[in-house]
């Protein structure tokens, strides 16, 4: 039995949750693949269907606390430097 989580995705100026819950312990690779597949078919409410590349995105993981469930946030990386 795995801990369920909601995957929130930001892409192309839009934001939405993957329709189905995922495992909180899913790998970043799997999460990015599921997100890309879902967006390509219009399967994320709030994000228009399009091809998506999450290679340079990262996953923030927030364990459940108080009234908040497990959350996974897929967002762009933001490091800079030489």
């Amino acid at each position, binding site marked *: 039995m795995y801990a369920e989580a909601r995957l929130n995705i*930001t*892409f*192309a*100026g*839009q934001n939405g949750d993957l329709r189905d819950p995922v495992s909180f312990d899913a790998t970043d690779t799997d999460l990015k693949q599921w997100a890309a597949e879902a967006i390509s078919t219009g399967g994320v409410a709030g994000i228009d269907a399009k091809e*998506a*590349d999450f290679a*340079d*995105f*990262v996953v*923030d993981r927030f364990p459940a606390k108080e009234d908040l469930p497990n959350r996974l*946030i897929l*967002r*762009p*990386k*933001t*490091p*800079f*430097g*030489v």
Partner: protein
Amino acid sequence: MSIEAGVLVDLDCEPIHWHLPRDRNTGALPDSRQLWDIIWENRARVMGFAHSHPGSGIPGPSHEDVTTFAAIEAALGKRLVWWITSADNFVELCWVGPHKLAYARGPAMYEPTWMQRLRDESGYDDVNAGLTK
């Protein structure tokens, strides 16, 4: 020794947020969820982001830089201006395509008013002071 710094800039070319995280160092601004949150909150008025590189001369974007540029633009759904400064020069970069990482320098004719503060926050004066001793 200089330390990298950054600033988020609005459509009037004015600073929105000075990015001076505790974990910045001489060669990097680490990944920051807070920075992304601020970019997203201000997405309607963001023009671009500037950061500093160590040393002097004409700076060039690293692979880390251009992949970050591309990722942020993909998330926002719009193209931005990316400035990089050194102790004595700066460049402004935009995506020119068609490749995902095809960023090129613009004319950089006018130095933004916040550029000097960015250099101050990067500690270049300390570097220059050391060189002149």
